[in-house]
């Protein structure tokens, strides 16, 4: 098996799905001749042509709206936001048109909106966002946020084949920084299933996307101190895999949630509520969070470093929990 980047894994998923099913089409800005701002769709146009690789004006509402209309006729469009920050421009289409369609009148919308998200690359306030929680708060959507190349490919395939609208977040910091062996054969990773990345017994660290790697790094440091954390990578935020989280907390009795999203209204709060409701009696310590600051994502490196969680912050928070 060859080692490939997460970006290449995403590109492969697009190729393979478009090869497998002529109902799959790609739509977005600069995705054809140019191959996309991050080259995630490079080569698609040459292989599948302009009918299936639809290059659009700078019109995010039109992109999502048109993808919705296409899906009504049984196509499975994959819409690209050049940066996921720009999904804000299509907010109404996503939350009102697309998300409510099946509930309101039984009209499924089998489409994907994917795009590069996340910080750590000095992109500034409009090219670094993690807007996933706007959509986790929207019934009718599924929200996926992978952390590895293997998962990215398998989850994107599942997202394309799903009968519901899926928002697929691709952390751009991970695009070319992580490499792993990925099968060339067809495989999928199921939506809505978290994975235990590291087994442990003293504390549960729940995370996703780039922060899953930070959590793993923190866990390695903690292990040297004799604290053995269990690390859970959520992979899908909506629907949330409550079982995996609860099972782990019942074993470790301590919970730390790490996310790159801002603190207030981040998924840590939701997870904390679930654990309090379902497993309060198992907790030996308060639930703790390591998150980004409640600010926009700042541009200058020292500012962004201050803004983002890192392994040291994870270790510090875990040490506090271990005192109980």
């Amino acid at each position, binding site marked *: 098996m060859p080692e490939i980047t997460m970006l290449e894994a995403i590109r492969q998923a697009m190729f393979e799905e478009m*090869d497998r099913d*002529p*109902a799959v*089409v790609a739509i977005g800005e600069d995705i*054809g*001749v140019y191959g996309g701002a991050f080259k995630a769709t490079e*080569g698609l*146009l*040459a*292989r*599948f*042509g*302009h*009918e*299936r690789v*639809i290059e*659009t*004006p700078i*019109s*995010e*509402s*039109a*992109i*999502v*709206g*048109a*993808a*919705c*209309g*296409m*899906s*009504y*006729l*049984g*196509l*499975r*469009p994959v819409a690209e936001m050049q940066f996921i920050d720009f999904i804000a421009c299509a907010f*109404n*289409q996503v939350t*009102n*048109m697309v998300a*409510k*369609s*099946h*509930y*309101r*009148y*039984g*009209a*499924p919308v*089998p489409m994907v909106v994917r795009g590069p998200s996340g910080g750590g690359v000095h992109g500034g306030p409009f090219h670094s966002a993690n807007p996933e929680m706007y959509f986790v708060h929207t*019934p*009718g959507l*599924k929200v996926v946020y992978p952390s590895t190349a293997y998962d990215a490919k398998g989850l994107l395939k599942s997202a394309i084949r799903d*009968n*519901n609208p899926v928002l697929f977040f691709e952390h751009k910091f991970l695009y070319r920084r992580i490499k792993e062996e990925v099968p060339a054969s067809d495989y999928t990773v199921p939506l809505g299933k978290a994975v235990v990345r590291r087994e442990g017994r003293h504390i549960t660290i729940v995370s996703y996307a780039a922060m899953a790697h930070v959590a793993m790094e923190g866990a390695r440091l903690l292990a040297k101190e004799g604290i053995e954390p269990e690390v859970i990578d959520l992979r899908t935020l909506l629907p949330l895999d409550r079982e995996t989280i609860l099972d782990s907390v019942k074993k470790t009795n301590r919970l730390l949630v790490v996310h790159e999203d801002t603190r207030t209204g981040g998924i840590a709060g939701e997870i904390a509520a679930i654990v309090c409701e379902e497993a309060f009696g198992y907790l030996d310590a308060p639930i703790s969070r390591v998150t980004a600051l409640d600010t926009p994502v700042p541009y200058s490196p020292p500012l962004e470093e201050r803004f983002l969680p890192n392994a040291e912050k994870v270790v510090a928070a875990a040490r506090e929990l271990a005192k109980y």
Partner: protein
Amino acid sequence: MPNEKMTAAPGGALTTAQHLDLYYYMQLNRRLEDRLVTLFRQNKIVGGVYSSLGQEGVSIGSSYALEPRDWLAPMIRNIGALLVKGFKPRDIFTQHMAKFTSPTQGKDGTSHFGDLKVRHVVSPISMLGDLIPVMTGVAMAGRYLGQNIVAMTWIGDGGSSTGVFHEGMNFAATQRAPFVLIVENNQWAYSTPVGRQVPIKNLADRAVAYGVRSTIVDGNDVLAVYTASKAAVDDCRAGRGPVLIEVKTMRMKGHAQHDPAEYVPKAMMDFWKQQDPIARYEKFLTENKLWDAAKKSEIDARIDRELDADQKFAEESPLPPPELAEQGVYCDGCHTIEAEWRRPKKEVMPPASSEEAVWKVADFGAFKASAHPVAVPAPGVAPASVPDAASPDIEPDGAGPAKEVPLRVPFGRGPKDRSVELERRDKAAERPQHPPRHHQNKPHKRRRR
């Protein structure tokens, strides 16, 4: 506003039965809404009632131009279009009364329902303009699948101010999508008159800027609306790209039942009362001997019979069980999603689909004003089926009534039709030539005021 110029010749291609169909649907639309008003006053309607009184000719005339395979998405005042597409009065009654037997089982109200499989109707959302890109996508998918369909939706004068109107029209135009937009200018966006929303007289003028062909019709003349819509639909089906039709009409009630619309000048209301689309069409049918009093009574009796039965059905229907609230957020295999291919799939698969990934850019560096927009064949449409979009004399297929309403062809330098420009040039040429005056070389004297 209605005048002879805007009124197209009666739809000569329609049979007598079709002429009576138009009457049936308009009258059904009106009497159905009359009953909704009564039910509202009886507190039997859960939400609002958004009257289309006076606008029935728009909904009926435009949707009647579609074929069963075509798609539409109504707006709040297009219940008539839903009736033409085959939905029954009971669907409208139950929707408004939030009954379990309604098409949405009580999950949504009013005209907010649809049917993807049989009637090809997309449900609207309350946010205005979003259906324009959605129906563009429907049109594009239909073309991709080889279905040769046309997609249609409506927007009000108010909704034409939204950002997504612009995104949608521009995208439909760049894609040359088989998409018809009916801009229903009913003079009022809730309480704001159209003159305070836009600084232009005709909303159709905006089509020029998108490179989209357009026409303006008298919305209270159902045949004019039908004729213009039929021409637009035929044109779209022939692969000539989207068309915008502005219909001039008038909202004869408030925004919804709660709104007495006291802000509407009485003289304006009185003027439009004289333009009632049903009264005008009845007169037309009588003058052209397409019916007699007996036929009218027969149709009216049929309408009342159908409404009686369906209203009874709705009133006797149960409200939904509370636990339904929790169901149906996601499709968990309850729907089988399969596209209906009307062309060989291998056409869109490699190697047939493969092409050289390069842009071909014509006319770069040329800044001389072009009288024509660049006609770019849309992806997926064989260039042979795409005639020059800028050709001012578009001939619809066959000798239909469409000839009576030539589309306003967009052209590159503003909202003037090419014919206007040519006419002006001709007139200038006819004017007697004055000998050159000799004051040009004299210094200008400043006039005292």
